[in-house]
């Protein structure tokens, strides 16, 4: 148990400091650690937890809390949350006072701009991996495709898309 908690702490502390461009960039590494390296759950369950977290209010990284809770109960939830939110918060607190001094420096702009393609590649990888694990059949792929197009083209609220997808799923249409 202590071993599991320590492992959770190490994994999420590392993810915390690598999450440039927000939480979705670290999903593939989280999935790799949780599913492939530690076998805490199958890929499909990881996607289900990701979906649950998307349907809940608040920051989009609540999957961290869910993974911690799933792996080691309340203690796991606490350890995963502190490890994921603590280190990046400490960095924010440390940098806050210096921000006025370096925000307009050329290197800061170059560094931020240089991280954009890295973020883009990582979020695209997240999308492919989560879609592959979430879509066991043609109807699921269809829901994914339609939601992707609607979310990209319109300003429809994401909760409507999640709700509609769930309802279509509930009918069992096209699922065996």
């Amino acid at each position: 148990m202590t071993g599991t908690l320590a492992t959770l702490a190490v994994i999420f502390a590392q993810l915390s400091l690598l999450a440039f461009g927000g939480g979705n960039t670290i999903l593939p590494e989280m999935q790799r650690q949780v599913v492939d390296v530690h076998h805490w759950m199958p890929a499909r369950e990881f996607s289900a937890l990701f979906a649950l977290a998307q349907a809940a209010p608040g920051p989009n990284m609540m999957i961290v809390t869910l993974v911690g809770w799933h792996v080691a109960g309340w203690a796991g939830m606490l350890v995963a949350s502190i490890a994921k939110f603590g280190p990046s918060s400490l960095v924010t607190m440390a940098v806050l006072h210096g921000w006025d001094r370096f925000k307009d420096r050329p290197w800061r702009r170059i560094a931020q701009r240089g991280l954009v393609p890295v973020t883009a590649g990582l979020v695209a990888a997240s999308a492919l991996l989560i879609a592959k694990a979430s879509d066991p059949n043609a109807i699921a792929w269809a829901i994914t495709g339609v939601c992707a197009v609607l979310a990209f083209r319109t300003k429809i609220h994401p909760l409507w898309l999640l709700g509609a997808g769930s309802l279509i799923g509930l009918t069992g249409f096209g699922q065996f």
Partner: protein
Amino acid sequence: MIPDLARADEPTTEPLHTPTIRELFVGFLTLGFTSFGGALPLARRAIVDQRRWLTAAEFTDLLGLCQFLPGGNVINLSVALGMRFHGWRGALAGILGFIAGPSLVVVGLGVLYEHTQDDPHVRHLFVGLAAAAAGLLISMAAKIVLPLRRDPAAAAVAALGFVAIAILRTPLLPTMLVLTPLGVAAAKRAARRNAGTVDNENKGAAR
């Protein structure tokens, strides 16, 4: 119609309010419970328009820091705002307020899921929910990737990252240690080219 719109855009002269630690906690608790599908627009409205903790310019500036650093934007914002007003106690009040509510909600949903996941209806529902969530993620990826098509070097870095992480499944840390310098090199090249274009345009204008 037009004068009304103009008035709505005018900066209000109402003075800013410095939140107490309690107000920071309650403010972010409310935000955590009420923001679905991305907390940023709501955070801006609550902090700038409703509670008047920051001016619009201060908010944008602070958000710039939060986007630059690792971690979620609004999570970092809750820490930075709390820190700015009340040091580490304020930072703790902000982030705890923000994640307390959603943590309880999400664990409640998790308990529900574990107890009902063998029910075929629930299983079907989850296939639909997860498929829709995957669609949202694809749309988000498209919005970040498509602007890169004008910058082949940046697009190449993104493609490299995609292949490494999604197909080769390399660990994140070494991947980022290789890709970030490449991304920075691409950004430098783009900045130099832009500077060159501006210089040429200026020369053209001078002539």
